[in-house]
Each structure stands twice: as C-alpha cells, then as structure tokens.
C-alpha cells in the first residue's frame, strides 16, 4: 500500500497483480484476438473510449497492457503503448503528431532505418526533416521552424555512440514549444530515464536490451505526459477534433495521456502494428532481469574496453565512458551508471582485417542485432556497407576497419580469449 517501489522491484512486478480467479503468478498470455462483451452497452462504452478495457487485440490486449504498464512505471511516464517493433513505434509517433507540410528536426547521427524513414519515406507524405549534429544545441535551435512539430534523436547514437546532451536540448525544445522525442533503446531506463532530464516522449526497440535475449521483436512509445499540446493551431492532431469519436479532442479528454490515446485510436486502429501477446510475454520475461543484466553488461563492457584499448592489434576504440570520447563529459553527467554495452573499434589492417577477425571468432556471433545476452559482432565494411568505398564510408561517419561489438554476459575472460583468436588470424594476414 503506497510503497513507491524501486526500479528492481518494478522490473519484476509492475503491470501485474495475480488475479483472484487463477492465482497465476506469471503474467498470463492472453492469446486471443477479441473479448466477449457483457452487453451492447459495455461494447459501446469501449468503442466510445468512455472507460478503459479491451475490445480487439490490434488495439490492446491484457498481456501487452501489462508490458506497457511495466514500461510506463520504469520510465516514470504517464502511459505507454507497445507495438510490433521499434521502427513501428517511431512511425506511430511521427504520424500521430505530424501531417503533410510539417517539419522535423532530427539528429544526423542515428540508426540507418531512423534516418531512412525521415529522409526518404516521410517526405513522400509531405513531412520533411532537417538533420543536424546532435551535439550542437545551437544548430538544433536554429533548425526549429514555426512548422516544426518534433525534435528527434537517440540518447546514445547508433552506431557512432554520440551522446545527446538531453537536458540542454530539452530546455531548447521547451522554450520553442516542441516535444523532444528520444530513442532510448541503447540506454534503457536502467541507465537513464529521459523524462527526468526534460524529454517528452521515448521510443524503444524492445528487441534489444529490454527484451535482452534475441527472441522477440517489439517496440514501445512511452509518453512522459509532460508536454502541453494545448496549441490547437500547432498540434491539431492531438488537441483539435479527431475525425472519429464525435470529434474528440484527445488533449481535453485525456490530458497527460493524450498522445497514447491518439496513437491507440488512430495509429493502432488504422495502421495495425500490434505486438503479439506471446512476444509481449517474452519481452516481459527479459525485463524482469533488466537491472541484473545491465549491471553485468556494463561491467563486461568496461573490462573489454581495457582489453581493446591496450591491444596491439587494435587501431582505435570508441565508447562514451572512455575519456577520449568527445562526449565523455556529457555521458558522465546523464549516464552515470555507464553508457551502454556497444563498443566500436578499428582493427589494424583495414577492411580485410575486419573481415578476417569476424570470420575467426567462435563465441561471438556475427549478426545484425544488438543488446542480446550473448556477445554479438558485425563488420559494416564487409556486410551492411560492403558496397561503399572507404572514402564513402568516412563521409557517413564510418570507417572500413570498424567493428561494432555488443558486449554480452558471458565470462569476460572467455570473450577476450575468443577475440585473441580473431586477432591472431589478423596478425597472420598483416604479415
């Protein structure tokens, strides 16, 4: 009763109380598409958004709702909505807030799919984006126009690991009356809760550290509830009349949860990127151990940073917890527990050396995911970016010797031993 439980406790319990009927301790998987209405009156009240409840799993589901409520509790948000992937989450936010003729300011150093969506897809629908350096608050402020409807960035950039100075950018956004939307996938709420630093909306790829086991794709939007959508001219999709539900104004009716109500009523209803109840269950199982895993991820990351920084085969190492990183001071300020478990490093010998290293390790898995409990690696120069020249990669902020490493939870000495195999093979090549 009014305990105000702490993060570790909420990771295990938030969103679910065992039901009186079955006593099921685990969150049950409600593998159903729909829900029997007790009466036509009850059905009407759900359709009219008079009271909360479930009417169709594309819109909401009890298992998915438990996950959503856990995420809202962990982030300290007003409400959350889970969906089929992190990219679906981002798309839902953009389309809930923006219409044709609107403008977005976004970080220029982000995950490729985030950039693709804003640079190539959304302009076809009349929503244009200016990309700016996330570490340049003045440039962000100058890029905000009267028709700018949101500022978007990643707390920890992928793959460059640039750290956004969230409190400074949030202060600019507040002054300009524009919501700050952050992709917080790489930090998770364990390392940093963006709302405490003034951000307004968070999107997650739950597939990564939150889920943590590489078994389920999922995404989420968490709404801070701390943005004033009251300017009807500027934010007509949230505070103006909605085409359905009798011309409802989500802002007037739902206040702090207006954005999530809008996304559920329009984005989930019309686009349908729903999360399966079984995947919601898998993702929640991951979240139960998030604090333990993140602690170990960070411990292993720091140990591997020492190992790589002192290794003769390594040309360079980049991580925000190293004092050589340009954003090290910002990282210390907003990510005091650590700046995540992605390391990027270069191998002496260029593109070929990177390829040989990747093909010579045994324990670390060569794949396109991050945030798994297992150690993962990818060499963009020989895979995702193999079609680009070294110069072209440099222009995109990448180098052809670069390895992206997602540090896992194995015994750290086993990871190091595994890497030694790769370095040995590279040494042979360089001879």
């Amino acid at each position, binding site marked *: 009763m*009014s305990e105000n439980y702490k993060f570790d406790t909420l990771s295990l319990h938030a969103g679910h109380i065992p039901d009186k009927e079955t006593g099921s301790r685990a969150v049950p998987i409600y593998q159903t598409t729909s829900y029997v209405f007790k009466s036509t009156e009850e059905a009407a009240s759900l359709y*009219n958004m*008079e009271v909360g409840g*479930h009417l169709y799993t594309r819109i909401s589901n009890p298992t998915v709702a438990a996950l959503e409520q856990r995420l809202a509790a962990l982030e300290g*948000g007003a409400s959350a909505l889970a969906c089929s992937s992190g990219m679906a989450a981002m798309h839902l936010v953009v389309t809930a807030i923006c219409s044709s003729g609107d403008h977005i300011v976004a970080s220029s150093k982000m995950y490729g799919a985030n950039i693709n969506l804003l640079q190539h897809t959304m302009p076809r629908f009349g929503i244009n984006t200016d990309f700016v350096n996330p570490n340049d608050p003045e440039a962000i402020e100058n890029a905000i126009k009267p028709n700018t409807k949101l500022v978007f960035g990643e707390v920890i950039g992928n793959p460059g690991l640039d750290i956004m100075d969230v409190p400074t950018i949030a202060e600019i956004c507040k002054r300009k009356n524009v919501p700050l939307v952050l992709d917080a996938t790489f930090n998770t709420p364990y390392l940093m809760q963006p709302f405490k630093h003034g951000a307004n909306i968070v999107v997650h790829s739950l597939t990564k550290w939150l889920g943590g086991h590489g078994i389920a794709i999922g995404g989420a939007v968490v709404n801070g509830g701390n943005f004033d959508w009251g300017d009807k001219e500027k934010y007509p999709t949230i505070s103006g009349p909605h085409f359905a539900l009798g011309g409802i104004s989500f802002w007037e009716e739902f*206040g*702090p949860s207006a954005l999530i109500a809008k996304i559920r009523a329009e984005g989930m209803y019309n686009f349908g990127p729903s999360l399966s109840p079984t995947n919601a269950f898998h993702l929640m199982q991951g979240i139960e151990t998030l604090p333990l895993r993140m602690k170990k991820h960070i411990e292993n990351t720091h140990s591997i940073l020492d190992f790589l920084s002192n290794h003769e085969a390594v040309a360079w190492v980049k991580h925000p917890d190293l004092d050589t990183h340009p954003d090290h001071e910002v990282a210390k300020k907003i990510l005091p527990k650590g700046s995540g478990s992605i390391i990027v490093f270069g191998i002496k010998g260029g593109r070929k050396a990177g390829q040989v290293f990747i093909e010579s390790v045994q324990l670390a898995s060569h794949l396109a995911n991050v945030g798994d409990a297992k150690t993962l690696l990818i060499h963009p120069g020989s895979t995702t970016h193999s079609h680009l020249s070294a110069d072209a990669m440099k222009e995109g902020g990448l180098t052809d010797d670069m390895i992206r490493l997602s540090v896992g939870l194995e015994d750290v000495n086993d990871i190091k031993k595994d890497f030694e195999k790769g370095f040995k093979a590279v040494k042979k090549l360089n001879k």
Partner: protein
Amino acid sequence: MIINFKGNETYIGTGGRSLDSNKSTICFLHGSGQNHLSFVQQARFFAFKGYSVIVPDMPGHGFSKGEPLKSIKDNANWVYELLVELEVQKLVVVGHSQGCLVGLELNRLYPEFLKGIIFVAGSNEIPVNQFLLDLAKEDSQKASKMMVTWGHGIDGDMSTNNWPGHSHYGEGNNIMNMNSADALQHDLHSCNNYSDGVEASKKINIPSLAILAKNDQMTPLKSGLKFVDLIKNCETHILDCGHFLQSERPKELNSIINSYLTKLQ
C-alpha cells in the same frame, strides 16, 4: 468547452457531448490539486449514457485561468454561480475528496438547488497535516507527488490499470502539474479550515450516496464512516482500493452511481 466566467477563461469538461438542458445534469467536482481529468472515466461514461455532464476546472486548475479560490465556501459559491450561468437546475453533484466538502457546502448554502448528492472518498472534514501544508507552499510538485503516492492503493504501486498502458502515478503527477503552482496550497488550506461539515451533513435531506475506499490514506475510511453516520439514509458502499476510486475502480464506481441515478429518476 471554454467559457468566459467571472472575467476568466473557464474550462468545463462535458464528456465529449454538448450540454443539453433537457437532460438530467450531473456536475463532478474535483479534489485538491486535481482538475477535470480526475473524472476522465466518469465524464464520458455518463455523457454517453444520456446525461448532461459538467466537469469544471476550478480557477487556477487544469485549463481554467484565474486565482485559485481560498475557502470551501468560496468554491461552493463559485460552483453555484457557474451552474446558474449555465442555466442548470435540480442537478446531481458528485464530489471527490475536497469536491465532497464543496458539494456539502453548496447544499448547505443553497438547500433547494440539488436533486441528489454523491460523495466519492468523502468526509465532513479533511484535516491536513502541517508538513503537507508547508510543502505545498514550498514545493507544490513534491507535495503533489507525495499525494499521488499516498492516494493510490495497490494498483498505483503495481502500475496495474484498467486503462491499458496507463500509469496511476505518472498520469496523476502530470494532472496535478497542470495546475497553477499555488493551487494546491490554497486547496489544502481550504480543506483544513473547513468547519461547517457536521452541520452541513446533518442538513442533507436529498437522496445521498457515499462510495468510500478501504485503503484510503487521504480521507481514511474511519472518517468517511463517521461522516455517513451524520447523514440521514445515506446509501454507502466501500470499494477495495485507495483514494482515487475514479481511476482505480472506474467500472464498479460507475455502476454504483448509475444504479443510484436510475433510482433517483
């Protein structure tokens, strides 16, 4: 809807339906530091059930401008004048917490005005400790946060919610932060200073309904039960939750209110 009332922009929630003087009217009165959003699952529900619904944001609360009022009597007079301005008569008032004191006082001052009165987490007195009174003045956001935590039962702690994806604490804190910074301190002082509750309770001669909460730490059940004993024939229900019955037990609360309204008609 927004109207100009007593020189200030005043917001009135109507549950997504237009006001209609041909329908029975229900007016919901929010608690200390709250606004119309504390009745989000009641306003639309009863508006779509055929009632004309009025949920005003008191001055300095939610979307209403103006200086917060400084006594329960001032609140009651403001509500009376607003309802007269809206040409509403013979209505049912539903108060939550401080809104119960305002409803009590409204009925004491204007005894022929109401048709029925409903108390949600109510009492005839709401004493407030000095620590909270001081904190509300010094740091209203911190005081709000404490009230949101104390105010909820297990559903708040566990982040379980009838409304998918919503957080009682996260939503509750942000609802309170929408108000002007001095609104909470004036509300709490108004509650603490109200002393006409016993007389007002004994004076009730219209059908009354009280819905109390078993785990209420703001207006404890013991105080609520003493209160209903002062009222002649008050129908009383107790739900297993904290102070914020509207969001913790919306379906049960709506069902009890709906039965009462049906009987009243």
